[in-house]
């Protein structure tokens, strides 16, 4: 929301003594100090970073090829990894045996711990390219080579209707869900900064026009519009095309908040003395904007970005969940959750809802991180 500029001089107070120590530190140091004080924000940042590690190493961390489907292995329950076999250490999972129920004719699975499937670290698995370049087949976790039988498998989080490993799909879904967000945020940052800066710096008619635009965009509910636009994609578009198109659409709505903040800051800064000084010394307007004014916004921008990211993620997840965004075989959290659309499914196979957990986790983490950044971004306030 708008910040009130200090309204008049007031004679210094006890609290100002604390400021003395602060006034000699550099801006970045200040921000870092303040950020460090928020323990929660630090934890949140660690979580966010962990997620992005997953994005990079999705294949390495997976246990099976995410698109490898076997219909007869559909809807199997999770097999958790056990570290001890009786009393000896030995990574393994319990096998699953299934039989068709005479009543419902559905396959019912149970964990059968008499049969243990050994598991080891850095096992061999399906082929992939690390970082998209290095071909390898090593994965973090996998079955030991020697006991590979066709019916052996480890499904850490169970399987979906088509027998695909939920755990690996989840990891891959993280990739798409988190990177869509990044592109979208990038675009809306650009839009937000440009429009906000023009609006705040020039004022007058341009400012008015842009502000009206902001209001109009903000008063229109976004989801019906997303739905409309997304439904308009021809079904023959490639996944990638749809991916980028969705990104662009979402960012067309998401730039308004950042634009408002930037504009507000520009308006207050425009009247500051240092800008007048720069103008008087003959600097061009572009130079003033980019060299003098913009650097003080970086922290705001980062804070706004990390708060806009959850918005993107939720938007994409919702659209895909409704079937209007990414479609299979693309894997995102939204498409994964499509399987969990009704009560019966959830009641019988609750593990299909597991993709909800990373969604909630990353959004919480991003919010906390963004909050911490935003508090730290203004070292001179408060």
């Amino acid at each position, binding site marked *: 929301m708008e910040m009130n500029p200090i309204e008049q*001089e007031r004679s*210094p*107070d006890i609290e100002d*003594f604390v400021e003395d120590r602060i006034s000699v530190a550099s801006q970045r140091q200040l921000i870092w100090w303040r950020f460090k004080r928020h323990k929660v924000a630090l934890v949140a940042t660690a979580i966010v970073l962990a997620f992005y590690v997953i994005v990079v190493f999705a294949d390495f961390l997976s246990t099976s090829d995410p698109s490898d489907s076997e219909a007869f292995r559909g809807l199997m329950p999770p097999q958790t990894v056990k570290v001890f076999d009786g009393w000896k250490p030995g990574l393994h999972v319990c096998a699953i045996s299934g039989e068709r129920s005479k009543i419902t004719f559905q396959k019912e699975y149970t964990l059968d711990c008499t049969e243990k499937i050994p598991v080891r670290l850095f096992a061999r698995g399906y082929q992939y390219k690390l970082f998209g370049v290095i071909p390898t087949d090593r994965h973090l976790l996998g079955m030991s080579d020697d006991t590979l039988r066709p019916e052996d498998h480890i499904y850490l989080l169970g399987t979906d209707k088509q027998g695909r490993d939920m755990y690996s799909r989840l990891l891959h879904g993280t990739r798409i869900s988190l990177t869509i967000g990044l592109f979208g945020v990038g675009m809306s940052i650009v839009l937000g900064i440009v429009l906000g800066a023009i609006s705040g710096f020039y004022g007058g008619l341009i400012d008015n026009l842009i502000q009206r635009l902001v209001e109009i965009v903000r008063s229109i509910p976004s989801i019906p519009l997303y739905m409309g636009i997304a439904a308009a994609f021809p079904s023959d578009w490639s996944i990638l095309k749809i991916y980028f198109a969705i990104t662009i659409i979402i960012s067309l709505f998401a730039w308004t908040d950042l634009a408002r903040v930037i504009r507000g800051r520009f308006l207050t800064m425009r009247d500051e003395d240092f800008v007048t000084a720069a103008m008087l010394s003959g600097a061009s307007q572009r130079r003033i904007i980019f060299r003098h004014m913009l650097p003080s916004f970086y922290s705001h921008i980062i804070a706004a970005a990390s708060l806009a990211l959850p918005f993107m993620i939720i938007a994409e997840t919702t659209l895909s969940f409704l079937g209007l965004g990414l479609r299979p075989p693309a894997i995102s959290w939204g498409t994964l959750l499509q399987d969990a659309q009704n009560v019966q499914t959830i009641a019988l196979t609750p593990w299909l809802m597991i993709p909800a957990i990373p969604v909630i986790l990353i959004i919480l983490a991003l919010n906390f991180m963004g909050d911490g950044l935003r508090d730290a971004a203004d070292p001179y306030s408060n």
Partner: protein
Amino acid sequence: MNIEQTESEILNTGTEPLLSVKDLKTYFFTDEGTVKAVDGASFDVQSGTTLGIVGESGCGKSITAKSILQIIDSPGRIVDGEVKFSRNGDAGRNLLEMKPNGSEIRSVRGGEISMIFQEPMTSFSPVHTFGNQIVEAIMLHSSLNNQEAHDLAVDWMSRVGIPNPEQRMSEYAYQFSGGQRQRAMIAMALCTDPKLLIADEPTTALDVTTQAQILDLLQSLQKQNGMSIMFITHDLGVIAEIADTVAVMYLGRVVEVGPVETIFSSPKHPYTKALLSSVPTVYAAPRERLPSITGAIPHPQNRPSGCAFHPRCSSYMSDICSVKEPDLVSVGTDQQASCFLYGRD
């Protein structure tokens, strides 16, 4: 031997002072450490007189004032001291013993002791009319009905010199000028006929002309209803004009107290001396450097040991000044200073 005498004992008027502050201590418990904003302040206010409290920024003047009425915001807390308020020359009650925000202290606040603040713009609620806020003060401390309170408020507004008072009652703070806002604040403070008005830097935010007007207004109102004023400021010129008695504060303690003429003509505490000599005067020789006090005010969390002023004192005595803290001792008729120059323990 430590001689601590209150002003009244020195003056021997036989009546208790209206307000007697003894050894007030207010600390702020922050994450960065404890800040001893007020660390043993003592002074008196006699009925019908004006006490000026003067000191540099951050010496604890405002906190002292707020402590009297117990309106300190957390993380601040009054940890020690006594504030005796006696209306009729009787023994008086210790304000600090009253329950914080209880009904007793609330009847004192605004009723018997009123306070005006430095920033009249932000001291009024921006979304309530003036009339609303002044009438509220009246109704809190009297049994007048709405209409009577309204009329009283209008009356006071004109007494403080606000033109068109009736119309002003339904206006908002941002529609007034700075000087008028301060006048309105004075009206709001005095409409309940308090015995003591605490004025916390009321003229600091005003231009010189308006400042003079407000000071005149305060003095004339004082003559009219005989109230006492506790006037806080960092401006020695204002003190000279308005105060009868002066208390000089440094880092949370009162270092010197006495009648205004005596303080100005023969200051005893080294800090007071230095303060007075750093005021530019017409009589100084041309092209002479303006003397200033060496050093800077220490951070309240880094209080110097012993006498807080010793690092900057030109009369520093190494054997005692950094070791023990001096108390107020008598240094003349009606005058006290806390300095070992005038008596060691």
